[in-house]
């Protein structure tokens, strides 16, 4: 399709190059430098989609991210929903279509790269318009480390949209010189296409850089598509400009109705005329620039409709010289047209009253209701806003430490003022950082500003159409109208936050950039209160939408969370292990043989450990080296049992509790020397228990001479388990006398294997005769294979965590965090024997004496045996009991407790479970019931130790 609305020359697009794109199935052309919106307008197309709930045609209403109307779905090069036609840069092969408010996520994985960079600066300047460039130059010339970020494809800000002059030359010449000068400063980072979308504490600012989309197919594959910049700035200068806002009137949503400034942008920046016949409706002088520029470009400007009684005498004169009719004291009360505006309905307006109107034909209606400073980043940083009644807008209302606002974002009205203010703010920031400004700090001369006629603050034109505001759109994207605000206020809502949520105004992709202040103004009018009292809704990041893919960056897939693997991981993979995640660890769960499911594999592995020999990779076990003259004192204070009496060479099981007396971890402790212990924790508790020990040692007992450090990854641990384990370990470590008398249960011995230090410990988490083998991970595979070779005659069987769990549960050994939940004491677990009566105090002791902790009806750990000898009770199942008459109590049926662990046992030849049951130990021998799939399964309550309760097997 041709581009009949492209001007013969001018604009910033590369007219020598043509790109082809498809919109709504139709082929179009444009130029590099175009946005999707400007290229569509060049073809004469305004309508993008229909609205979300009313289905009304909607078009391009602004020229950048404030556009409430032009949502598109991009299909090629990669599906992406909810983008704005005004911010999508044109690239060859782009395929897109308009969206009625809701998009569709890609159904295929995004193959693009996304990444993030941290950057630290003295001064971060957001916005490369006149004020931002002045600030950046001032800071750069002073030698400061500077970052300048701007969301457009090139620097210049408002200068890109106009015909301003600086130093008697086109202002963009100065922009180009400023950019070149910044590039010469080695400490300056200058990014275009980078939107600062979040401003946080202490100069932390997030920006999204769009790096490749505009390059189309030519984009280098190695470049990340988008990059999140994490700036930490000692000083932030916000020079984000201002958003024009419309005036609300009936049927103000038709395609062809756009902000006056946007039309000027399309003309000067893109070389595109928004239409052939224009009506301009304004409350201030700025829209006259659009009227005059469009007139000069050949657009027939039918009328400038100025709501101010006197209009602007000076601008009126300019218009009359150009032959443009100015209707002062008049407003647009409505429009005609369906898919495009065809007429503006214009009527006299005085003292808030609308007179009899007439229709003026037009194909584009330009509207300006004034300018809202883009205070988002300031407000996000919790800066307070002040309502400026003359501007009819909210401006920064206080000074913040380390963040200042300049230029039109601060309400500065003209070019000369913006340049001077940018420099002033930068100098103040430098001064606060004790950086001297440069001697030569010249900025270009701007023309003497002309004082404009005072603007009129007009939020809405009274609705004379009979629709009572129901077609007077405040938020076009949400189809929310003046009538909706009236309904909210009529429902008694007073807070602007409530009005927002009731009407949904400001909740779309544009977050109310054009509708927010209007809503405050209209709500204030309806309530009869000052706008200052209504205030604005809270500005929250992100300033513009950011894709989750960009926020995720490289932290996705395998890089989302670290995977920890043991030194034997490759061996496990080769052996066909099925892995499970234990925290960040990958642990073998079981090793299925061909044709085996988990149940069969685990029964086989369990049987091997109980009748022959099994071997486990227990390397993930937490290990803490506790050293110092007071190491034993610290452990005595943290464990419920006595550790100071442990002999060097021996091992003791211990339990740790919080101050509330509840179990937080358990494990064994090896005394390595008088002043040195190796504390073993659960896999999941390793980091937490080290933190716990550090906290007490640092904050309560800094007098203790003790140091704790993690050695989890310095040792691999292989439990060799079962009646034949002594044969295996004895064969591999011949220097060690493994006889029971020489190497008794709960002792450890150091030895070497080919000169490599190895530690052996008689610790059992299965009840079987067992030896734990500890060695440096470098030698893990070699030692593991020696053990396997030595075990081959006995059918040594590697087993995983599932078998480990079954074996320990058969012995009633709890897993802290599975069989406990933070409300369980050692006594509840039947481990009163591990609680010292001798020690005067330890963490948790005082809580054991609390009345509640003595309650015999506390939940206690017991075993459960399903009477049918078949059902494996689901973990987490509730436990109930029948009344004496054999009936269930009426609902709600009291719950006695729940199943915490449940397995099939090879040793018992039946399923069993562990459970926390109210008064459980007093119920041993009773039958209770567990609901499973709608039926009640009778189960017998037993002691928690189901296999080898007399402990006969541990010595082999």
């Amino acid at each position, binding site marked *: 399709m041709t581009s009949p609305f492209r001007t013969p020359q001018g604009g910033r697009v590369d007219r020598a190059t043509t790109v082809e794109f498809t919109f709504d199935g139709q082929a179009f052309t444009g130029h590099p430098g175009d946005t999707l919106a400007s290229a569509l307008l060049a073809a004469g197309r305004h309508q993008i989609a229909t609205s979300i709930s009313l289905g009304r045609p909607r078009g391009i209403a602004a020229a950048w991210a404030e556009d409430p109307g032009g949502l598109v779905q991009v299909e090629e090069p990669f599906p992406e929903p909810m983008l704005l036609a005004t911010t999508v840069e044109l690239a060859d092969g782009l395929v897109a279509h308009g969206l009625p408010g809701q998009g569709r996520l890609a159904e295929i994985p995004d193959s693009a790269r996304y990444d993030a960079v941290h950057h630290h600066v003295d001064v971060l300047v957001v916005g490369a318009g006149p004020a931002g460039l002045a600030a950046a130059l001032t800071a750069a010339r002073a030698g400061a480390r500077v970052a300048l970020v701007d969301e457009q494809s090139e620097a210049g800000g408002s200068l890109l949209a106009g015909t301003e002059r600086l130093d008697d030359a086109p202002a963009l010449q100065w922009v180009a010189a400023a950019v070149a000068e910044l590039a010469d400063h080695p400490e300056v980072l200058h990014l275009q296409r980078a939107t600062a979308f979040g401003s*946080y*504490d*202490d100069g*932390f600012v997030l920006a999204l850089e769009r790096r490749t989309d505009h390059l189309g197919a030519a984009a280098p594959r190695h470049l990340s598509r988008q990059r999140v910049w994490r700036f*930490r700035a000692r000083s932030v200068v916000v020079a984000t400009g201002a958003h024009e806002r419309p005036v609300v009137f009936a049927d103000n949503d038709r395609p062809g109705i756009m902000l006056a400034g946007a039309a000027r942008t399309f003309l000067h920046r893109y070389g595109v005329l928004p239409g052939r016949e224009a009506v301009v409706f304004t409350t201030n002088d700025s829209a006259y620039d659009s009227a005059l520029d469009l007139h000069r470009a050949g657009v027939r400007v039918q009328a400038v409709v100025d709501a101010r009684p006197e209009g602007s005498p000076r601008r009126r004169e300019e218009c009359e010289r150009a032959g443009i009719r100015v209707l002062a004291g008049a407003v647009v009360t409505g429009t005609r047209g369906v898919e495009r505006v065809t007429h503006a309905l214009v009527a006299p307006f005085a003292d808030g009253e609308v007179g009899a109107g007439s229709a003026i034909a037009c194909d584009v209606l330009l509207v300006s209701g004034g300018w809202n400073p883009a205070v988002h980043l300031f407000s996000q940083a919790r800066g307070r806003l002040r309502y400026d009644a003359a501007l009819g807008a909210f401006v920064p209302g206080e000074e913040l430490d380390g963040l200042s606002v300049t230029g039109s974002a601060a309400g500065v009205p003209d070019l000369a003022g913006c340049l001077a203010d940018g420099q002033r703010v930068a100098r103040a920031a430098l001064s606060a950082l004790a950086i001297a400004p440069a001697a030569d700090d010249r900025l270009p001369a701007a023309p003497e500003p002309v004082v404009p006629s005072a603007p009129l603050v007009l939020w809405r034109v009274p609705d004379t159409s009979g629709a009572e505001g129901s077609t007077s759109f405040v938020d076009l994207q949400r189809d929310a109208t003046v009538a909706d605000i009236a309904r909210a206020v009529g429902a008694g809502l007073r807070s602007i936050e409530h009005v927002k949520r009731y009407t949904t105004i400001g909740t779309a992709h544009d977050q109310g950039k054009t509708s927010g202040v209007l809503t405050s103004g209209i709500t204030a009018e309806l309530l009869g209160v000052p706008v200052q009292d209504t205030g604005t809704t809270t500005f929250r990041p992100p300033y513009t939408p950011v894709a989750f893919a960009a926020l995720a960056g490289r932290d996705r897939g395998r890089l989302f969370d670290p995977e920890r693997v043991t030194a034997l991981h490759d061996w496990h993979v080769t052996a066909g292990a099925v892995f499970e995640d234990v925290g960040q660890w990958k642990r073998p769960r079981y090793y299925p043989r061909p044709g085996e499911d988990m149940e069969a594999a685990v029964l086989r592995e369990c049987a091997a450990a109980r009748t022959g020999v099994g071997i486990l990779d227990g390397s993930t076990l937490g290990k803490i080296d506790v050293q110092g003259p007071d190491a034993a004192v610290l452990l005595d204070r943290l464990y419920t049992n006595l550790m100071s009496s442990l002999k060097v060479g021996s091992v003791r099981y211990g339990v740790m509790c919080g*101050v*509330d007396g509840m179990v937080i971890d358990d494990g064994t402790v090896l005394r390595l020397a008088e002043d040195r212990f190796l504390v073993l924790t659960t896999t999941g508790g390793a980091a937490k228990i080290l*933190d716990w020990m*550090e*906290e007490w040692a*640092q*904050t*309560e007992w*800094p007098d203790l001479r003790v140091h704790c450090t993690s050695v989890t990854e310095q040792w691999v641990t292989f439990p060799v388990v079962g009646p034949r384990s002594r044969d295996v370990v004895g064969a591999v470590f011949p220097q060690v006398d493994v006889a029971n008398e020489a190497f008794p249960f709960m002792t450890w011995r150091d030895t070497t294997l080919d000169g490599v230090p190895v530690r052996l410990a008689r610790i059992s988490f299965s009840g079987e005769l067992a030896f734990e083998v500890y060695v440096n991970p470098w030698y893990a595979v070699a030692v593991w294979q020696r053990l396997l070779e030595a075990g081959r005659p006995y059918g040594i069987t590697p087993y995983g965590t599932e078998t480990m769990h079954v074996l320990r549960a058969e012995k009633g050994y709890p897993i802290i965090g599975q069989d406990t939940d933070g409300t369980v004491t050692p006594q509840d677990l039947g481990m009163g024997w591990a609680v010292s009566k001798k020690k*005067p*105090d330890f963490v948790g*002791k*005082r*809580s054991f*004496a*609390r*009345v509640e902790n003595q309650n015999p009806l506390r939940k206690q750990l017991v075993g459960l045996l399903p009477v049918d000898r078949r059902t494996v009770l689901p973990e987490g199942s509730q436990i109930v009991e029948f009344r004496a008459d054999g009936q269930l109590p009426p609902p709600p049926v009291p719950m006695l407790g729940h199943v915490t662990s449940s397995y099939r046992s090879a040793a018992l030849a039946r399923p069993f479970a562990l459970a926390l049951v109210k008064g459980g130990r007093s119920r041993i021998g009773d039958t209770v019931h567990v609901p499973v799939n709608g039926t009640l399964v009778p189960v017998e309550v037993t002691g928690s130790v189901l296999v080898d309760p007399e402990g006969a097997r541990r010595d082999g």
Partner: protein
Amino acid sequence: MQLIACPWCGPREEVEFHYGGQAHVPYPDDPGGLSDEEWAHYVFYRDNPRGRFAERWNHSAGCRRWFNAVRDTATYRFERVYRLDDPKPLATELATSRRNTAR
């Protein structure tokens, strides 16, 4: 994201730190001598003021040292950090509120 000034490492990102609750709540000298209620106050009860609060912080992803800070719970602002062996802040310091606190 705030910067928190670790007394040992200087200003670091907030994500490197863990919060440790109210500072200056010492472990009782003689827990056995306390009533259940007194013990429960040590275990469970903490102040929750609006305004300045003396708190414990741990530079958990850095030097792993604990330290104390006076922080304004209404503005999140760290007024100062101090070492564990520095004296407890005076009530007058904690009573002083910045202007934002009243908001």
